[in-house]
C-alpha cells in the first residue's frame, strides 16, 4: 500500500507502472485520476487534516483489501493551491482480474470523497467559496455499506 499526501504533482504513468513492476501475478491495474476542472473557477485550494487524512485513507485501503483480492494499492492526494488542469488525486489498484481492481478503485474514491478530511475552496470571479458536499457523493459511499464482493452482482 502506498498512501501519499503532497503538494507536488505526481507522475500518473510511473505510479501505475510501479504496481506491476518486477512481478508477474498482476493481471489488472485500474486507476482513477481526479483533475481540477476549469470553467468558472480560477483555482482551488485544498485544505487537509494532517495525520488524520493519511490515517483515514489507510483505513479505507485496509478495508478494500479485506473486500477484494488486491495485489497493490496506491493513493496519492494533493493539497495546497491547484489550477485547472492540475492533478488532484490518483487511486490505482492492482489485482489478478479486472473486477476487483475496478471495484476497489471505485470504492476508494467514493470513500475519499465523503470520509477523508479534505476541503476545497474555490477562487471564482465573484469571490472565494468553500465547496459544499454533494448528496450524490454521500449516496455513492453509502451503497458500499454492508456490501461484500460475494454479494455483488
Amino acid at each position, binding site marked *: 500500500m502506498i498512501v501519499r499526501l503532497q503538494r507536488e504533482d505526481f507522475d500518473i504513468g510511473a505510479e501505475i507502472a510501479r504496481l506491476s513492476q518486477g512481478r508477474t501475478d498482476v493481471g489488472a491495474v485500474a486507476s482513477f485520476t481526479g483533475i481540477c476542472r476549469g470553467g468558472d473557477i480560477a483555482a482551488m485550494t485544498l485544505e487537509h487534516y494532517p495525520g488524520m487524512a493519511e490515517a483515514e485513507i489507510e483505513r479505507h485501503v485496509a478495508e478494500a483489501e479485506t473486500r477484494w483480492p488486491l495485489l497493490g494499492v496506491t493513493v496519492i492526494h494533493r493539497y495546497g493551491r491547484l489550477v485547472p488542469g492540475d492533478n*488532484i488525486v490518483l487511486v490505482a489498484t492492482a489485482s489478478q482480474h479486472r473486477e476487483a481492481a475496478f471495484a476497489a478503485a471505485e470504492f476508494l474514491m467514493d470513500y475519499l470523497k465523503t470520509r477523508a*478530511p479534505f476541503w476545497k475552496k474555490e477562487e471564482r470571479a465573484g469571490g472565494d467559496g468553500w465547496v459544499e458536499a454533494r448528496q450524490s457523493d454521500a449516496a455513492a459511499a453509502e451503497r458500499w455499506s454492508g456490501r461484500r464482493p460475494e454479494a455483488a452482482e
Partner: protein
Amino acid sequence: MKLIYFAWVRERIGKPDEEVDVPASVRTVGDLVAWLQGRGEEYAYAFENAAVIRAAIDRNHVKPDTAIAGAREIAFFPPMTGG
C-alpha cells in the same frame, strides 16, 4: 484538551486550534459543541448549524453522542469535499 478547526469552521472562529479546559459537565461531543456555542459570537456563528458539523476525536470520525473523556485532540470541520 486541544481543539482543531478546519475550513469554514476555522475561518469563522478565527483560529486554527486552541487549548481549552472543559467543565466536567461537558461529557459528549454534542455537549462540547453546545459549550463552544456559548463562548462568543464567532463560535455561535461557526456552530450555528450544529447538525452539519463533523467531529473527530484523536483523528477518528465520531458522532455527537461520543464521550470525550480521555480525548487529546478534538477536531471540528464541515462535511468533507476531497477527492
